[in-house]
């Protein structure tokens, strides 16, 4: 396909604003799938993505579109994740496009994460085309929302297309606008090959598959290619595009987006953001690539049955093949035995990893409360990173401790400014900026990240009745009077329950924690004492009273198998519990510090 007839674009949208429905419409219009093959949300392949309605990994479909001017165009739609945890994936998707559609729900208005993604797109010099979706809803206010887009994001939106992806209203006009208003790629066709690895994943049947964007030159099946960062050469065994069906091709031309397979053993052989070239005619330089992401949230993960440790290790390494952001190293807890300290991009990432380990790998495990990374300066002047609260030395053994501070941008209707501000203050936030844009208010707050991982997201949703959205970026490490809050169960310190808290909040936190643990730990054969302590000082306590008895009242010769089933049910209930000393502690108790019960936070 000649470059002037290619358009590479992505869709920026908040969850439920209709991105997937719109993408499905595009596929339908371009005949990528027969109607009977359409499965709702074609692009979200992973069952977890489909269930939660979120996108985790970048995907791409190549559509052939016959425009009203009679010409045939190749439209490459690169899907983007919308959650802040996966913003690095967004920048990857954006880097392979020349334009973006900003899809906004005309009844709801713009939302923080879309704003942030839109800024990223503009920084990367993409042309952004706003689209107002769901205009069929009775409470749609396209005029107001168009104004909001202009105010908040600063791009013209008065002429934005008014569409309904659900009914199909004006959807063909969107494709026409993509052709008319988004630029084609401008690569040099006869230059040496230069292609960007947008994503790589491990497929059990094909090995490593890479999604690539050809910047200059072309790439042919059977040719050798060089991964520039490693200098290693591979032969390309096959390549092609997804329509979304997998279609093999002989070549990818300048400006095209497609997948390739080259017999690479693991995804570290085809690093995301790397540049591919032709070893016989290499290009002069590497493409800028992507900023490497650092995990910001850490949690311990321990198999409930110690015998499962090796299986667990293998599962993590398999998972990592498709998730290069996942980091882990072995951890040994006195209370929980051998496990791993796992680093995540954020809370949603953590939940997803946990869910995949359980579902796809059938690992029964305990996850400890997530912690951010702290920095301490030892008495010897040495600076250390602490990603596990249990490893924080006693107060006298370090000079100072610093916590990560993030800059949060919260976007909400004006009615909720009061409660949201109050919540941010409670979380030790410092307000930096407050801007009113018609029906939306943008608040910028600096907050300790440790407070945000606790329960900020759930609380924000609850104080704003779901209307507030937020996104954040890391700012700096900042000194703070932080202490380690230990939890003792029947007199023994449980390292996996330790947390790092602000000194002023320690007493209240300790009390809350003891109360919640009392509710979450089931009654056992004996009284269980729960204590919160700072150093050697006990600051709060509670007791789980002993269960008096647990025995079948009646058992005669008759129906052994029915009674047995009853006991099997009891045993099943213990699966999610870990024996710590003589006490059985359920998974929820290890997360008690998170406060409000974490429901699956639909947070795209």
């Amino acid at each position, binding site marked *: 396909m000649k470059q002037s007839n290619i358009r590479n674009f992505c869709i920026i949208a908040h969850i439920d604003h209709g991105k997937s429905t719109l993408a499905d419409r595009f596929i339908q219009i371009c005949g990528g799938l027969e109607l009977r093959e359409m499965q709702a949300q074609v692009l979200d392949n992973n069952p977890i993505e489909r269930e939660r309605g979120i996108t985790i990994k970048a995907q791409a479909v190549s559509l052939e579109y016959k425009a009203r001017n009679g010409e045939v165009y190749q439209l490459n739609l690169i899907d983007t994740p919308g959650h802040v945890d996966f913003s690095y994936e967004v920048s990857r998707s954006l880097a392979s496009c020349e334009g973006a559609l900003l899809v906004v729900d005309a009844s709801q208005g713009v939302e923080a994460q879309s704003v942030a993604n839109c800024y990223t797109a503009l920084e990367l010099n993409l042309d952004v085309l706003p689209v107002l979706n769901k205009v069929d809803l009775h409470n749609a206010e396209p005029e107001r929302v168009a104004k909001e887009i202009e105010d908040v994001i600063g791009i013209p939106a008065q002429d934005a297309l008014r569409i309904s992806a659900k009914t199909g209203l004006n959807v063909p006009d969107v494709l026409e606008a993509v052709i008319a208003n988004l630029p084609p790629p401008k690569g040099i066709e006869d230059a040496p090959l230069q292609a960007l690895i947008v994503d790589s994943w491990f497929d059990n049947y094909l090995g490593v598959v890479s999604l690539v964007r050809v910047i200059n030159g072309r790439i042919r099946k059977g040719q050798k290619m060089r991964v520039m960062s490693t200098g290693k050469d591979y032969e390309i065994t096959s390549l092609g595009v997804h329509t979304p069906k997998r279609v093999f091709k002989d070549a990818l031309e300048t400006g095209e987006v497609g997948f390739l397979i080259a017999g690479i053993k693991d995804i570290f052989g085809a690093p995301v953001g790397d540049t591919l070239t032709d070893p016989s005619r290499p290009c002069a330089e590497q493409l800028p690539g992507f900023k490497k992401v650092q995990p910001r949230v850490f949690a311990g993960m321990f198999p409930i049955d110690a015998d499962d440790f090796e299986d667990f290790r293998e599962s993590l390494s398999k998972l990592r093949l498709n998730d290069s952001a996942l980091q882990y190293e072995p951890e040994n807890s006195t209370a929980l035995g051998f496990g791993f300290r796992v680093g995540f991009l954020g809370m949603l990432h953590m939940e997803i990893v946990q869910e995949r380990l359980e579902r796809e790998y059938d690992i029964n495990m305990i996850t400890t409360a997530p912690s951010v990374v702290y920095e301490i300066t030892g008495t010897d002047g040495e600076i250390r990173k602490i990603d596990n609260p249990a490893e924080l030395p006693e107060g006298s053994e370090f000079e100072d401790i610093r916590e990560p501070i993030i800059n949060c941008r919260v976007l909400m209707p004006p009615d909720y400014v009061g409660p949201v501000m109050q919540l941010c203050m409670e979380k030790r936030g410092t307000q930096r900026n407050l801007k009113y844009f018609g029906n939306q208010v943008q608040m910028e707050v600096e907050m300790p990240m440790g407070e945000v991982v606790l329960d900020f997201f759930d609380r924000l949703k609850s104080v704003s009745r779901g209307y507030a959205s937020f996104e954040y970026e890391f700012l700096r490490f900042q000194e703070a009077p932080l202490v380690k809050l230990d939890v003792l169960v029947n007199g023994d310190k449980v390292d996996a329950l330790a947390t790092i808290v602000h000194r002023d909040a320690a007493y209240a936190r300790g009390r809350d924690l003891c109360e919640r643990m009392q509710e979450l730990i089931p009654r056992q054969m004996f009284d269980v004492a729960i204590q919160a302590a700072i150093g050697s000082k006990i600051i709060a306590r509670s007791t789980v009273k002993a269960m*008096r008895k647990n025995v079948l009242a009646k058992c005669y010769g008759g129906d052994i198998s029915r*009674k047995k089933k009853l006991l099997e049910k009891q045993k099943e209930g213990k699966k999610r519990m870990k024996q710590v000393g003589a006490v059985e502690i359920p998974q929820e108790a290890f997360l008690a510090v998170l406060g409000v019960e974490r429901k699956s936070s639909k947070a795209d």
Partner: protein
Amino acid sequence: MNPAPPPLEAACIPLSLYLHFPWCVRKCPYCDFNSHALRGDVPESAYIDALLRDLAFDLDQHPDLPQRPIRSIFMGGGTPSLFSGRALGGLLAALSQRLSFADDIEITLEANPGTIDEAHFADYRMAGINRLSIGVQSMDAAQLKRLGRIHDPDAVRSAVAVARRAGFDNLNLDLMFALPEQTPEQADADLAAALALEPEHLSYYQLTLEPNTEFAARPPPLPADDEAWTMQQQGLQRLAAAGFARYEVSAYARSGRQARHNLNYWRFGDYLGLGAGAHAKLSGSAGVRRRARHKHPKAYLDTAGSAEMIQEDRIVSAGELVFEFCMNALRLDAGFGWDEFEQRTGLPSSVLRAALAGPAAQAMVVADDTGLRPTPLGLQHLNTLLTTLL
């Protein structure tokens, strides 16, 4: 994978007989036993014939049965006292011709205080029945009503008096505690009223909501755990003061009056089970075999004596044997001897010792050279221990 269970020498293992009578005047809301509300008359002779055909089927398959003495018979239900003394007498006589009854055989009949009259009881005694288990449940009129019973406290008093006059010197009363909205004081009064009837044996158990009962579907307000515990503790004291020692989780008896039939279940003895939905356990060269008959009276009557009456038939695997043995034998205060375990399961006692080596078992059982018994804590938390054996 479960290894095949070891062969067992049946001749050494005590044998009992259970007879099930599936009809009741009406079904109680808490009851999960195989019982069916009666419509019309009890098909007395048809059912007795069916029981005998049922036995013939067992005898055909296990020719060794007549050589094994029957230590006890229990006629349970349902409400077996809906059957006449004459019918039960005929049944027992026919059974004694086909099986060898031990000289000191215990023959218990479950009796509903609402179905009893003087002539009946004398006939039962004449038929050879020497123990009655009376379903009292409560001595409080309001509670009895709530429990859906067909009798009142006075009916219990007169049933006991009638039983004594008929010559029964071995009576059990079934009594429940932790009844809907019951206070510990009320439970204590209930127990005192039952003890005033001077039974030889008392089954004193906590009301629990069983699946597939009316109470499970619409749970009544039951006392909290701590209150139920208080009731049991004060009950234990009152029973001890009255000369009743606990020998099983919910069973109390005067000296020498323990229920032989129930003890056989708890000691993992063998038993034949005849009648609708009756369960049997028989040891043999293939290990322990469990069988159950068709539950529904009509299906049972139609199939009794043929292979179709068997609804469930399985050999207990070696792995399950340890669990099933403990599920029964650890209910006994006195526990059991290692020799008993080895004889009834065919497994070396080391298997059980290994299974109980975990920390959970430590405070719950005491082992010595002769055997194993539960601690008071273990007796109260038997389920916790048993789940570790699953």
